[in-house]
């Protein structure tokens, strides 16, 4: 419970429209895009860095946890107030402070929506590269916290490769500026350390990002397969032939049906899998690579290789891909998305293993993922109303992640650890490594009030934590 005095101080600071604390309002802030939920005691809406500092000082005075929140689209429970306390919602710190095309930079507040950065420079020939599927809603602050990825990170890298400077507020209220518009500043790379720290060390109040030149030509290819093995083999073949697409996405048959029914993007309904491949760059190179991709796909048994003929056709294919999670909601009341990564050469056996897990548990598992970098997104469809479905889902998910670990991969490629996979961190990292992460957190947040219960194992078993949070009606999509 938030002490009454703390609430009073926050209300005084932010005014009656600067916070929410009625249960019916708080309900909207108890979940994100993942399956867990927990309710904060109060949600506050700062407008400035000074507001954030004042909020953090009040939280410190009363020993209250702080959880930062962007748009709440996260997929690992990163913005869920697991221990209650103050949720700092950045939706009103949503100004683009500076567009500096001459220096290929933009400076934005954390609540700016990802896609709005690119839209703000529309027509100038520049864009902001990281493109999470939720980019129409998710915020730059959330992207920085989770080190978000997206389909095109295959070529352009994830958020950390595009964030050059931060303004951050520590839990004791001190403000630091790290990095800047310039590159290679001497000293420790605090910007790199804090990007992806999942809100467990600081709150981010300003972000300097890199803008990139748009490529001259973009070509989008849809390769259609009667077997998902063949699609998986094509990914390896693309690497072997040294072709460098900017995105290689795979959708399996189950997913194709769901996506096509929802979006009518032109995906085949009878295929076992498709690859959505994008090539960008200098015209002559892209044109040659289109042919190379065609050959690679056909040599691996593609039934058909289609080239998007217009920008509209291309956008529709991507719309289908990026809205896929929404499409699942039409078919299954609840689903659970995994984010494991395997080396590229292990994609085919991993898909086979996921198929076996699906059979073993009697659950439909559909795959839609960033095949080019081995970032799997098996989606387990389940029904919370069916007894035992939930337990089976959790067990199946963990088996798949364990397989990814054993294959030399990771439990998360872009969604973050959050409160979803923190208990699995011990399978991936040694005690020494986890202890070092814990010490970094303690250095910034000695009282453990920044997003507590995330990233690092809490020592409790997974089921104990997840089961109540996954109760009937918990997940609504």
């Amino acid at each position, binding site marked *: 419970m938030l002490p009454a005095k703390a609430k009073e101080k926050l209300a005084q600071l932010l005014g009656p429209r600067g916070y929410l604390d009625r249960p019916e309002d708080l309900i909207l802030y108890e979940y994100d895009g993942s399956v867990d939920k927990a309710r904060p005691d109060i949600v506050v809406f700062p407008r400035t860095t000074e507001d954030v500092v004042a909020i953090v000082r009040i939280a410190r005075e009363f020993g209250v946890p702080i959880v930062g929140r962007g748009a709440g689209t996260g997929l690992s429970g990163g913005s869920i107030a697991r221990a209650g306390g103050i949720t700092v919602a950045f939706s009103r710190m949503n100004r683009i402070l500076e567009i500096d095309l001459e220096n*290929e930079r933009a400076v934005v507040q954390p609540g700016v929506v990802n896609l709005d950065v690119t839209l703000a420079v529309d027509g100038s020939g520049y864009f902001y590269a990281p493109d999470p599927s939720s980019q129409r809603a998710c915020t730059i602050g959330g992207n920085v916290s989770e080190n978000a990825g997206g389909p095109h*990170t295959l070529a352009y890298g994830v958020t950390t490769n595009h964030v050059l400077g931060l303004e951050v507020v520590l839990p004791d209220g001190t403000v*630091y500026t790290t990095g800047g518009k310039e*590159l290679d500043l001497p000293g420790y790379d605090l910007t790199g350390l804090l990007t992806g720290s999942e809100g467990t060390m600081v709150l981010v109040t300003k972000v300097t990002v890199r803008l990139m030149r748009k490529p001259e030509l973009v070509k989008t290819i849809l390769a259609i397969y009667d077997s998902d093995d063949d699609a998986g083999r094509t990914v390896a073949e693309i690497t072997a032939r040294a072709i460098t697409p900017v995105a290689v996405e795979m959708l399996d048959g189950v997913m194709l049906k769901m996506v096509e029914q929802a979006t009518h993007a032109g995906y085949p309904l009878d295929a076992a899998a498709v690859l959505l491949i994008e090539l960008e760059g*200098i015209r002559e190179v892209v044109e040659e690579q289109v042919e190379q991709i065609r050959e690679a796909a056909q040599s691996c048994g593609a039934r058909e290789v289609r080239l998007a003929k217009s920008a509209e056709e291309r956008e529709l294919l991507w719309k289908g891909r990026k809205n896929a999670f929404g499409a699942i909601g039409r078919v299954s009341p609840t689903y659970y998305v995994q984010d494991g990564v395997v080396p590229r050469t292990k994609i085919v056996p991993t898909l086979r293993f996921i198929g076996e897990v699906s059979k073993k548990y009697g659950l439909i598992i559909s795959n839609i993922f960033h095949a080019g970098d081995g970032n799997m997104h098996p989606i387990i469809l389940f029904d919370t109303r069916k007894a035992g479905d939930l337990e089976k889902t959790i067990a199946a998910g963990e088996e798949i992640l364990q397989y990814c670990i054993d294959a030399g991969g990771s439990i998360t490629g872009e969604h973050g650890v959050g409160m979803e996979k923190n208990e699995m961190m011990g399978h991936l990292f040694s005690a020494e490594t986890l202890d070092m992460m814990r010490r970094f957190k303690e250095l910034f947040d000695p009282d453990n009030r920044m997003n507590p219960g995330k990233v690092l194992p809490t020592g409790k078993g997974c089921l104990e934590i997840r089961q109540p949070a996954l109760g009937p009606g918990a997940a609504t999509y």
Partner: protein
Amino acid sequence: MEKSSQVTLQPSPVLPRNPQELADALAAAATRNRTIALAGASSKHLMAGPVEPADVSLSTAAMTRVLQYEPRDLTISVEAGMRYADLDRLVAQNRQMIPLDPPFSETATVGGILASNTSGPRRRLYGTARDLVIGMKFATLEGKLVQSGGTVVKNVAGLDMGKIMIGSFGTLAAIAVVNFKLIPRPAAEASFLLPFDGLDQAIAARNRILKGQTPPIAIDLLNPLSSAQLGYKGHLLALRLAGNTVAIERCRRELAARDALVLEGKEEARFWKQVQEYTPHFLEKFSQGAVVRASCTLAQLKEVMSSFETAAIARAGSGICYAYFTRADAAVRWLTSATGRDWKAIIEFAPDDQRDRLDLWPAPGAELEMMKKIKQMFDPNGLLNRGRLFRHI
């Protein structure tokens, strides 16, 4: 290469043969409160701050194994003491690359390149170690091996601690294992050298090229004094392009004006090697010389470059300028005026007999306080590479 007195002041190095031995050696020294001088091949011993004379000297130079390399995964894992040149040749066999282009590239170790965050011309497109490293193991003074990241190209599991090691000059822990992502070598490459009489025209050309449709993988700007060293005249804008032969042909038509020099094959490789190794060559020639590095915006680059009365080379598409002063006091004078103009600059290399009294990093900013706390966490007694981080840490 000239040996520095500072290096010879350190005891002869202990050479651990694997990550565990490295961790054990650090712990053995730290538990007895011995100060430690840590290095790879010591190729950059004149860079940044001198390590104060230490009780124990440690080198990763005997840790040279390739731990994992599956070319079809486009990843590789190597021990930190592996020479970059050996690594580069190994992956080149599969037409792959780690395009860091560091100076001292024949002798430098992978760990040393990361610790000093050195890079070169192709960073415009491919970035630095910050972008190419996907995982790391480092050994702490407590004798522990800590993992950051892994061997897959996309991974956000846990804190990205590897980032803090890049550019830390071995002041926190010892980099033991490095995992890189690999990039396929382009099918065709060519470089164009565009000479200009004035800096204004060179910058105007750079601006056009940066906004153009054929983005170079490297855009370096040599001022007349540095271009003369390489046998050219005037302000020289050097562009490196990659793609296929048709694309290169088009780039030649669009980017290479009539007076441009087109370099291909061995000639091209030789030119870029000279640019990449400009600093080592300069230091060999001028034992009293100092190298300044200034980080600036693309817009500031012209002003920064025009402020140098010495040889200078800029990564003109990234905003990094290197200036070569034959005497360290001239570098200090420049740095004082630069700091007054709010430019972010350091003395990157200085003569060994002067480094211990020069202000190598005059304006570190408030975040130095946070950096010192991180140092304190790793090394509470200040044992490891004391003074190496530009004499501030």
